[in-house]
C-alpha cells in the first residue's frame, strides 16, 4: 500500500537494487533510461564495428554473409529502439517535470513499467543471436517475403517489437499527460521550453504510429504461422502493402528520433549565445508542421517499388515541403547566434556540430526526395550516408550535447571541460571520416547491406572503416567523462551556465528527490 507524499523534504526511498526496480521517481527512471541507452549504444556500436571490419577490404574476411546481414539488421534495431528512443525518453523523464514545474511524471508507476520493459524486450531480441537460423537478417524494415524466412528468431523478434512498442506508447502517454496536466500555474503552453514542446509533438507521433507498427508485425506473424495472406499475392494480398504499413510508421518514426534533438539544441544555443531564442513561436509551428507532414510522405522510401505515377509525384512534392519548416528551424538557430556573446563550451560545440552536420543530412535528404534522382540513389550507400548524417551527428550529437549541458545539474559536479572538447573534436572528425565517403561510393553505385563489394570502392571503404573505429574509441572518453563527473569534480552552481534560463536552473544542483513539492511561481 502506498502513501501520500506531501512532505516537502521527503527523500526516503528503499535502498539497494529494490530502489531501482520499484522506483516511481522521474529522476531515477530517467537515469535508468540513460544508462540503458548507454549500454545499448556500445552493443550496437560493436555490431557496427563488425560490419566495418568486414567492409575494410573487398572479399569475405571475418564473418559469413548471413551473420553480416544479422549485424546490419540488429545494429539498426538496437540503435533506433535501444539507444536514441530510450535516451530521449530518459532526457524527457529527467527534464520535463522540472521544466514545467511539476513534482514528477503524471503516471509514475506506469513510468516504471515503461522503463523496465526495455531490458527484457532487448534481452529477447539479443538472445536471437544464439538461435537456430541466426538472428533476424532481413533488414530492420522486415520486408516480406524475405523476413518470413527468419528461423526460430522470428516470433522473438516480433514479440520484442510488440514489447518495446508497448513501452514507447506508455512512455509517450505519460509524457503527454505530464505536459498537459502537471504544468505549474502560469506555465501556459506558449511559455513552455522548446524541449517540452518538441517532446509533446514527438509523444503524439509515438502514440499515433507505434500501434500501426504493432499491427503490421502482427500481420507478418499471422502470415508466417496462421496461414493469412496479407503479404501473399497468391492469396490476394500484396508484399508491397507491408512497405506501406511499415513506412506509415517508419517515417513519423524518423521524426520521433530527431524532434527532441531540435528541442535540446533550442535550449543550448540561446544559453551560450546569451540571447533569447529567435522566433520561439515559429519554432513551435515548424515542429507541428514537420509532424503533420511526416504522415503524408511515407512512400518516398519506396519510389522504386512500382507505384502509380500520381503517387510518386505526390510523395515527392510532399517530402520536399518538409524542407520549409526545417529551414525555418535552422534559420532560427543561426539567427539566435547572430551577434550573440558566444562561448564554446562542450554542449555548445555539440549543438553547433549538430546544426552543420544535420543540415548536410537534410540536404542529401532533399536529393533523395527527388523521385527520378532517387531511382539512382535507392538502396545505395548514399542512403546510408544520408540517414547516418541525420542520426549520428544529428540525434546522437544532440543527446551528447544534452548530457554535457545537464550533467552538472544532474550530478552537482562540473564535467572536465578539456576532455569534453577532445571528445567533441575526435567524434566530429571521425564521424565525417566514416560517413562522408559513403556519399561517393553510394553515388558510384555501391549497394547497401552487402558484405562484399567491387574493387573500385575499396579506398573509400577502408577510410570509412578507420573512421568507424576512431569514432567508436572516442566514445570511451564519453563514458569515462560521465563516470568521472558522477564521482566528483568541481561543484556546479544552481544556474551552472551564465546564460541559462528556465526552471531547471532555479533548483539546486543536484535537484532534490522530488523536484517541486509546491508549484513554483512562473513569471
Amino acid at each position, binding site marked *: 500500500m502506498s502513501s501520500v507524499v506531501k512532505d516537502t523534504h521527503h527523500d526516503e526511498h*528503499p535502498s539497494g537494487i529494490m530502489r531501482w526496480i520499484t522506483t*516511481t521517481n522521474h529522476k531515477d527512471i530517467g537515469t535508468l533510461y540513460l544508462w540503458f541507452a548507454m549500454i545499448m549504444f556500445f552493443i550496437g556500436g560493436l555490431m557496427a564495428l563488425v560490419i566495418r571490419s568486414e567492409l575494410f577490404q573487398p572479399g569475405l574476411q571475418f564473418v559469413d554473409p548471413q551473420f553480416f546481414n544479422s549485424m546490419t539488421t540488429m545494429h539498426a534495431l538496437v540503435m533506433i529502439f535501444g539507444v536514441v528512443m530510450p535516451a530521449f525518453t530518459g532526457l524527457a523523464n529527467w527534464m520535463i517535470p522540472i521544466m514545467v514545474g511539476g513534482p514528477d511524471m503524471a503516471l509514475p508507476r506506469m513510468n516504471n513499467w515503461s522503463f523496465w520493459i526495455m531490458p527484457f524486450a532487448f534481452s529477447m531480441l539479443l538472445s536471437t543471436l544464439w538461435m537456430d537460423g541466426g538472428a533476424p537478417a532481413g533488414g530492420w524494415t522486415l520486408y516480406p517475403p524475405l523476413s518470413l524466412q527468419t528461423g526460430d528468431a522470428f516470433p522473438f523478434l516480433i514479440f520484442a517489437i510488440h514489447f518495446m512498442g508497448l513501452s514507447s506508447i506508455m512512455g509517450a502517454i505519460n509524457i503527454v499527460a505530464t505536459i498537459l496536466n502537471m504544468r505549474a500555474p502560469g506555465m501556459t503552453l506558449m511559455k513552455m521550453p522548446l524541449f517540452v514542446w518538441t517532446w509533446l509533438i514527438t509523444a503524439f507521433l509515438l502514440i499515433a504510429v507505434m500501434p500501426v507498427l*504493432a499491427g503490421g508485425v502482427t*500481420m507478418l506473424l499471422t502470415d508466417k504461422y496462421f496461414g493469412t495472406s496479407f503479404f501473399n499475392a497468391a492469396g490476394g494480398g500484396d508484399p508491397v502493402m507491408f512497405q506501406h504499413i511499415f513506412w506509415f510508421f517508419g517515417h513519423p518514426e524518423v521524426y520521433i528520433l530527431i524532434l527532441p534533438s531540435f528541442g535540446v539544441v533550442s535550449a543550448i544555443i540561446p544559453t551560450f549565445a546569451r540571447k533569447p531564442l529567435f522566433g520561439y513561436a515559429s519554432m513551435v509551428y515548424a515542429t507541428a508542421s514537420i509532424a503533420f507532414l511526416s504522415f503524408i510522405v511515407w512512400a518516398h522510401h519506396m519510389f522504386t517499388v512500382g507505384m502509380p505515377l500520381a503517387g510518386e509525384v505526390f510523395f515527392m512534392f510532399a517530402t520536399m515541403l518538409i524542407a520549409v519548416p526545417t529551414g525555418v528551424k535552422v534559420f532560427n538557430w543561426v539567427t539566435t547566434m547572430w551577434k550573440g556573446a558566444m562561448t564554446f563550451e562542450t554542449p555548445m560545440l555539440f549543438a553547433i556540430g549538430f546544426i552543420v552536420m544535420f543540415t548536410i543530412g537534410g540536404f542529401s535528404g532533399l536529393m533523395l526526395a527527388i523521385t527520378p534522382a532517387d531511382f539512382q540513389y535507392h538502396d545505395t550507400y548514399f542512403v546510408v550516408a544520408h540517414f547516418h548524417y541525420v542520426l549520428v551527428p544529428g540525434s546522437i550529437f544532440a543527446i551528447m550535447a544534452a548530457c554535457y549541458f545537464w550533467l552538472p545539474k544532474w550530478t552537482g559536479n562540473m564535467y572536465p571541460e578539456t576532455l569534453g572538447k577532445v571528445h567533441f573534436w575526435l567524434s566530429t572528425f571521425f564521424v565525417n571520416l566514416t560517413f562522408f565517403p559513403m556519399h561517393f561510393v553510394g553515388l558510384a553505385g555501391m549497394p547497401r547491406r552487402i558484405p562484399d563489394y567491387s574493387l573500385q570502392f575499396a579506398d573509400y571503404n577502408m577510410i570509412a572503416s578507420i573512421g568507424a573505429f576512431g569514432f567508436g574509441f572516442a566514445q570511451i572518453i564519453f563514458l569515462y567523462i560521465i563516470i568521472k563527473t558522477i564521482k566528483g569534480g568541481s561543484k556546479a552552481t544552481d544556474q551552472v551556465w551564465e546564460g541559462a534560463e528556465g526552471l531547471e536552473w532555479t533548483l539546486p544542483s543536484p535537484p532534490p528527490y522530488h523536484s517541486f513539492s509546491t508549484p513554483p511561481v512562473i513569471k
Partner: protein
Amino acid sequence: MSESGSYYVPHGSKWPIIATIGVCTSMVGGSSLLNGNDIGKYILAIGIAMVIFMIVGWFNTVICESEQGMYDEQVDSSFRWGMIWFIFSEVMFFAAFFGALFYVRTYSLPWLGGEGAGIATNTFLWPEFENVWPLTANGPGEIGGAFKTMGAWGLPALNTAILLTSGVTLTWAHHALKEMKRIQLIIGLALTVALGAIFMYFQALEYGHAFNDLNLNMGSGIYGSTFFMLTGFHGFHVTIGTIMLLVVLGRSIYGHFNPKNHFAFEAVAWYWHFVDVVWLGLFIFVYWI
C-alpha cells in the same frame, strides 16, 4: 483531498516489474510454442497466470487508494488523459488493419485482376483471376479450399443492434450514477454486461458457422485474413471491455463511486463506446459493402 499548493506522488510499486516478467514469460512461451517446442505452452500458461495476478493486484491497489481518497483532482485528470491517449493508440492499431482491408480492395486486387499496370501480372501469373469483392475464391493462387463469405444481415446485423443497445444502457447507467440512483446504475450496468456477453456468444456461433458450414478460416485468402483479424481483435476488445464492465458492476454493488468521483466508470464507458464504433466500421466495411 487536494490541499492547495501540494502534489500527490505515489510510492514505489512492485507491480510494474511483475507485469514485465509476466508479459515477457508469456512472449517467450508463445514464441517457443510457435517454434514447435511443447514446453512453450507451460511457459505461456505461467506467464498468463502472472499477468492475471498482476492485473488483479495492481487494480486492487489503485482501487483501495482511490477509495481511501488519496487521489486529488490532478491525479484524476492524469488518469483521464492517460485513458484518452490509450484509446487513441487503440484506434491507430485498428487503423492498420482497416488500412490493409482498404488497400487490398482498392489496389492489390484490381491490380491482380489486370487493371492498369497490373495487366502483366494478371496475364503472366493468374490470367483467369477476376477481381470481385467479397473475394469468393481463395485469391488468385487458390491457396486453400473453396469457401463461402459471411453475409451481413443475419447474426452480424443482430450484433450491431445489440452493441448499439448496450451503448444506450451504459449511458442510462451513467445518468443514474450522476443522480445517485444506485439501483438504476446497477441494472444499467448489468444489462450492458449481459448484452456484451450475448454479443460474444453470437460471435462464437458465427465463427462456428464460418469454420463448419462455410469452410471460411484464416487461410481463406485475403478475405479470410482481414475478416478474422479484424473481427478477432474486435472480439478480444469486447471481451476485455466486458470484464472491465463486470469489475465496475461489482464495485457499484459494493457501493463505490459517487457523482464526483467515478473515473473508472467513465474510462470503461469510453472504452466501450470505442469498441462500439469499431464494430460499426466492421459491420459496414467487412460484412456489408
